[in-house]
């Protein structure tokens, strides 16, 4: 079909050329959408949410993690005990649920404390800059020079063993990494042209920090938080394995691993159940962290 050729002049329609056809999405909408598209991260997220539900509701449904049954010690998985029993006849499945609560709780609480302390410390240092920043960073250097493992072991040997002490030992120097990250972010964002523009407009330091710096630094902070939770859980496991962390009858992934390894390889289930769950949880947190990093970075957005 031949179109009629119409050579009538048309005035320029600048409105039309300025029009934006694409749908507008805000930053957070973009983050959610990128994350939803990342299958690995979504599977990890679902798994972590599942663990959290288990940690909260599980021990209510299966409260008897301390109950011993000396007639049925070290039984392999069966109908009554789907994951078998330990050397005192305690149900491994019930203990694993209880252990999930303990381990996740330690991970979340310790890292949330680190997040708050680190953000405040790093934010203030980066925000004040100059001499104050210098002094605050030197304090961090001094703290860093003390071997962290030694402090933790020392604290756990001297103080009463238990969850509070463990959390304290994980947080006493645990916030340093995040403080450095936040400070670095704030310092580099401060030189960004939009922060300078706010300064030129007469905005105070506080306004710049709250409206321009922190919202743009939040991405890496969230990623760091997500990726450091498995670190805390791992540290708990390590310390408990050494017999310094959570002691029986309380259950945690760490002390269950320790119990399992003492019966290794005769009663494999004792070791494998917590080991598999622990490994999966670590992997899920790290994969979610990776997904978040991609989603939160606008440059990675397509």
């Amino acid at each position, binding site marked *: 079909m031949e179109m009629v050729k119409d050579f009538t002049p048309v005035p320029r329609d600048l409105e039309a050329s300025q029009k*934006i056809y694409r749908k507008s999405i805000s930053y957070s909408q973009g983050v959610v959408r990128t994350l939803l598209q990342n299958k690995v991260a979504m599977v990890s997220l679902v798994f972590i949410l599942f663990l959290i539900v288990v940690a909260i509701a599980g021990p209510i449904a299966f409260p008897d993690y301390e109950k011993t049954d000396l007639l049925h010690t070290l039984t392999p998985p069966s109908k009554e005990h789907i994951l078998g029993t330990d050397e005192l006849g305690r149900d491994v499945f019930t203990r694993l649920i209880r252990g999930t609560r303990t381990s996740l709780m330690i991970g979340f609480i310790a890292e949330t404390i680190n997040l708050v302390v680190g953000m405040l410390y790093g934010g203030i240092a980066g925000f004040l800059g100059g001499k104050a920043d210098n002094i605050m960073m030197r304090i961090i250097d001094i703290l860093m020079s003390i071997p962290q493992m030694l402090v933790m072991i020392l604290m756990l040997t001297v103080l009463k063993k238990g969850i509070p002490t463990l959390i304290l030992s994980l947080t006493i120097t645990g916030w340093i990494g995040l403080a450095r990250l936040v400070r670095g972010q704030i310092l580099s964002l401060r030189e960004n*042209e939009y922060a*300078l*523009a706010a300064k*030129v*407009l*007469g*905005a105070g330091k506080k306004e710049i920090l709250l*409206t321009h710096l922190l*919202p743009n630094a939040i991405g890496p902070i969230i990623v760091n938080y997500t990726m450091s939770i498995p670190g805390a859980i791992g540290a708990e496991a390590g310390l408990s394995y050494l017999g310094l962390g959570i002691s029986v009858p309380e259950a945690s992934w760490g002390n269950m691993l320790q119990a399992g390894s003492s019966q290794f390889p005769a009663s494999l289930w004792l070791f494998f159940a917590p080991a598999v769950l622990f490994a999966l949880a670590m992997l899920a947190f790290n994969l979610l962290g990776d997904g978040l990093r991609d989603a939160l970075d606008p440059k990675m957005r397509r």
Partner: protein
Amino acid sequence: MSDDVLFEIENLSKYFDVENKKKLRAVDGISLQIKRGETFGLVGESGCGKSTLGRTLVRIYEPTSGSIRYDGKDIAKLGRREAKEYASKVQMIFQDPYASLNPRMTIGDIIKEGMKIHKIGNDKDRTDRMCELLELVGLSKEHAQRFPYEFSGGQRQRVGIARALAVNPEFIVCDEPVSALDVSIQAQIINLLRELQDKLGLTLLFIAHDLSVVRYISDRVGVMYLGSLVEVANAEELYLNPIHPYTKGLLSAIPVADPLVENSRKRSLLEGDIPSPVDIPTGCKFASRCPYATSDKKEGVPPLHDFGGGHYVACFNAQSLINSMDEGNF
């Protein structure tokens, strides 16, 4: 154009600390007057300190020494309230339209930010004014709810201009406002700036490395080299009769969109690179690249000297260069 002076800059220096206790002398003893209502163009290669000078005027940086007087008042001695008032009178447009808008804020909020800081009007007034500004810079009010990433470079630069205008400034530092834009968009922004200047009676400091744009937009032009002004003159005078060898070299390198001109071009007059501003040579800073440098070492930096008609040159050999030009030996 009235001749009253808006900015009186005297012997201004801005040094930055760098490693090994050395100083980076970004701005090194500049004296300059900017008159009310004019456009002062500032050119030079990257690293010459032109942006630092602009940023010092809008108080992003505090000067290391020297003074800046705005409307007769020394800006270092302003009280808290006066300083805030100064921040509304003196604004800046940034180079990178991608980095100068907060990606988390909508266009509307970005433009309203300054009005909020200076408590201009209530929220409705600000929204009205914001819509007005959007139209003034050639965008539409439907754009207010959008985020910066949805716009092209030229549109973002318009938002940057609207943000600066929101607080009713008298003076705007335009720091390479078009160098990150496409050629077809550059002309739009330049036209917009000129139109706004006429309409609002603004004084502009126009910093750029694109010499042909500066020639077009500026009334007077200053050429900077390694933190110092080497030549200041009316725009046409500077482009038609440059005296300082550096200015000559710079002007000779302007690309021309004409193959015949480009193919007959002689080799660049300026060889080599600009020396590091950390280790500035003593004497004339340009001597290491200057084809007319004499071997007798003179002490100190050559001062800016008036060679008539407001044409200032900082060169020990300026007089002999002018003479040889007059004789047509050049």
